[in-house]
């Protein structure tokens, strides 16, 4: 495992586990299965849309003679999973490595479609290598290790300082202040909103997560969906309903052309969004250059610092991949090895603790953000992610029907509470249909 840098070995992980890792740290000549694969060389196919992997693939090839990485973008998000699912069903044409977002991991684990990486020695990263959120996602309740975390999305408050200053609105530190700020904007200017929202499942799950909610839980094939009685969920629904009723939020869906324009012209004053947002802002909202800043996420109680994750991906090996050993070497390189630096240089937000805490990363100044060292806020957020959150083993489906149910509340057809209740019914019916035991 020569590509591992020294730091992995100084962590407690090295002492906690197998002789395999110890030998690697000692730099002995002993080679493991995966090392042998690396020596031998070969070709691996990687399905991913994450742009910074291009540099990683090049660096990996440069470092290891005889290895070819065939990086293929088979689509982003849903399209990618469709292709992956089809290849898994067909049992042929599988990639050796696939990008899998954290929320999508459980359904592949249940389908027994991902390899347990423990057999390659991935348990050496069990402690103090990755932040808790991503590691918790890839280990799925500790039953195995099904992916190497690639990045993470701790959320923070991204805000347009010029707009806040112009209207004399204070940057909110609590959700109470946030609502106040929202009302101030509406009174000050008919075109300015504190944020936009048309019902986004990823956003809602993140907010519920921060509020300490755990509406979803899975144990084996027992699944609980509790959107009506979960406290965190109720807290969010009760808090957000007035934002819809009093039209405090711009009714524009995220990631649309209108949304980007509104971000650029200052009519959306802030976003509560994942740490991967800076790269998006820089590329898609050039007008916002110099205006945007990052602040900690507003809290339910003043003085708290609880946050949550939004998005983020891991790299995983599909069951039946032809060149799994070499694939694992690549994933290690990209997730904890030298590849991480390549990705950081290209603007990714890491999941590795060491990088999150490195001076170089934390003190980097971003011109787009007026020279602010935004990673200080974002790293802080990464370490304060609320514990105990779980996604459903069919979260992808859950997201796809969110707007059919909860989304209707944004059109005034129901309240958020009713919408959540409909969502729960829908998810329970689907879960039963898929053979899960649904707790009442």
């Amino acid at each position, binding site marked *: 495992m020569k590509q591992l840098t020294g730091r992995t070995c100084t962590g407690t992980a090295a002492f906690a586990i197998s002789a395999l890792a110890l030998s690697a740290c000692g730099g002995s000549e002993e080679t493991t299965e995966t090392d042998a694969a690396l020596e031998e060389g070969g070709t691996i196919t990687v399905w991913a849309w994450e742009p910074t992997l291009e540099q990683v693939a090049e660096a990996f090839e440069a470092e290891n003679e005889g290895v070819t990485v065939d990086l293929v973008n088979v689509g982003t998000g849903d399209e990618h999973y469709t292709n992956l699912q089809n290849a898994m069903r067909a049992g042929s044409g599988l990639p050796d490595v696939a990008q899998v977002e954290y929320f999508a991991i459980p359904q592949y684990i249940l389908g027994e479609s991902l390899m347990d990486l423990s057999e390659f020695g991935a348990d050496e990263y069990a402690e103090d290598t990755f932040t808790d959120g991503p590691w918790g996602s890839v280990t799925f309740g500790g039953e195995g290790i099904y992916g190497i975390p690639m990045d993470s999305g701790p959320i923070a408050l991204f805000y347009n300082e010029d707009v806040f200053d112009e209207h004399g609105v204070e940057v909110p530190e609590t959700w109470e202040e946030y609502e106040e700020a929202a009302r101030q904007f509406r009174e000050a200017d008919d075109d300015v909103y504190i944020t936009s929202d048309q019902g986004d499942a990823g956003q809602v799950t993140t907010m519920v997560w921060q509020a300490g909610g755990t509406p979803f839980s899975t144990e084996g094939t027992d699944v609980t969906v509790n959107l009506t009685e979960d406290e965190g969920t109720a807290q969010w629904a009760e808090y957000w309903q007035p934002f819809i009723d009093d039209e405090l939020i711009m009714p524009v869906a995220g990631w649309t052309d209108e949304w980007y324009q509104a971000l650029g012209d200052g009519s959306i004053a802030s976003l509560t969004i994942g740490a991967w947002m800076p790269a998006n802002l820089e590329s898609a909202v050039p007008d916002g250059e110099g205006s945007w800043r990052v602040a900690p996420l507003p809290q339910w109680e003043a003085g708290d610092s609880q946050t949550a994750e939004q998005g983020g991906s891991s790299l995983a090996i599909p069951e039946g991949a032809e060149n799994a050993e070499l694939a694992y070497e690549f994933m290690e390189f990209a997730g904890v090895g030298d590849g991480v630096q390549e990705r950081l240089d290209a603007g990714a937000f890491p999941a590795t603790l060491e990088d999150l805490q490195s001076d170089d990363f934390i003190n980097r100044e971003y011109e787009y953000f007026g020279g602010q060292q935004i990673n200080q806020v974002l790293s802080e957020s990464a370490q304060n992610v609320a514990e105990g959150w779980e996604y459903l083993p069919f979260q*992808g489906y859950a997201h796809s029907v969110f707007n059919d149910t909860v989304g209707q509340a944004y059109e005034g057809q129901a309240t958020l509470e009713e919408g959540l209740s409909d969502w729960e019914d829908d998810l329970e019916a689907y879960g039963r249909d898929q053979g899960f035991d649904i707790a009442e």
Partner: protein
Amino acid sequence: MTVVSPAVAADPAVRRRRRAGAAGSSTGWAFLAPFMIVFLLVFIAPIIYAIYLSLFRDQLIGGSVFVGLDNYLVAAQDGNFWAGLTRVSLFLAVQVPIMLFLSLLAALALDSGRLYGSSFFRLSIFLPYAVPAVVATLMWGFMYGTRFGLVGNINDSLGVNLPDPLSPDLILASIANIVTWEFVGYNMIIFYAALRVISPSLYEAAAIDGASQLRVIAHIKLPAIRGAMVVAAIFSIIGSFQLFNEPSILQTLAPNAITSSFTPNLYAYSLSFSGGQYNYAAAVAIIMGVITMIIAYAVQLRGIRKDGQS
């Protein structure tokens, strides 16, 4: 097309060829083989596979089991499916007549020979059809925007407050508008082509009899293009039932107005690709196929019968 097949069957040349085949020559089959292989592979096989798929249920827990016609029974009671079907039926009942009427007007205007620069009009009305549906929908999506789109601009400059075309109440009409824009030109070309083949002697006879233009239209032109109208209507009916591109693309702009079961096609797509319910999606697709065939066939029968009477 099936609509012309009776005429083909009546063609004496075809009958002759059939007799030659019956004489025992296998050469015909050899010539037919390339077509038959492709036909079976890309047309028949997928249908059979879809029917096969629809008889199973694949679960995340428990794998695939044979369930017979269970998926069809579920679909029969699936409110989402029937709501989607009702929606496209409403779309069909309102949008198709409007579109065909506009196409007919355009075709008659071009055919009248009184239009200055008719080839320019013909081309520009047809042009939207050449724009891929995806691009057209994206373009209209931008225009429908109440904030930064055309609707927003009109609101700002005229100080009015137009209703949001992407709101749940108006979304179907907005989609109908896009589809009409896309397909008026296409149908116009079908009608226009049919009008061009009418024998000039009929017009001369009408002129000698002193018939007005309206009478010429009512008694010569319209009856002569009835076949083309039936074809256009059948295509439009099939198109309506298959409504997918437009709602699927507008969904990102109006995620709450366009639900995952907005049209039956969109529903089948969501079922298989978001929910992994390939089997149920196959059943939904087959039910839709059968319903579309029945309605298209009914229209064709009705069209032909009237044709015979005239």
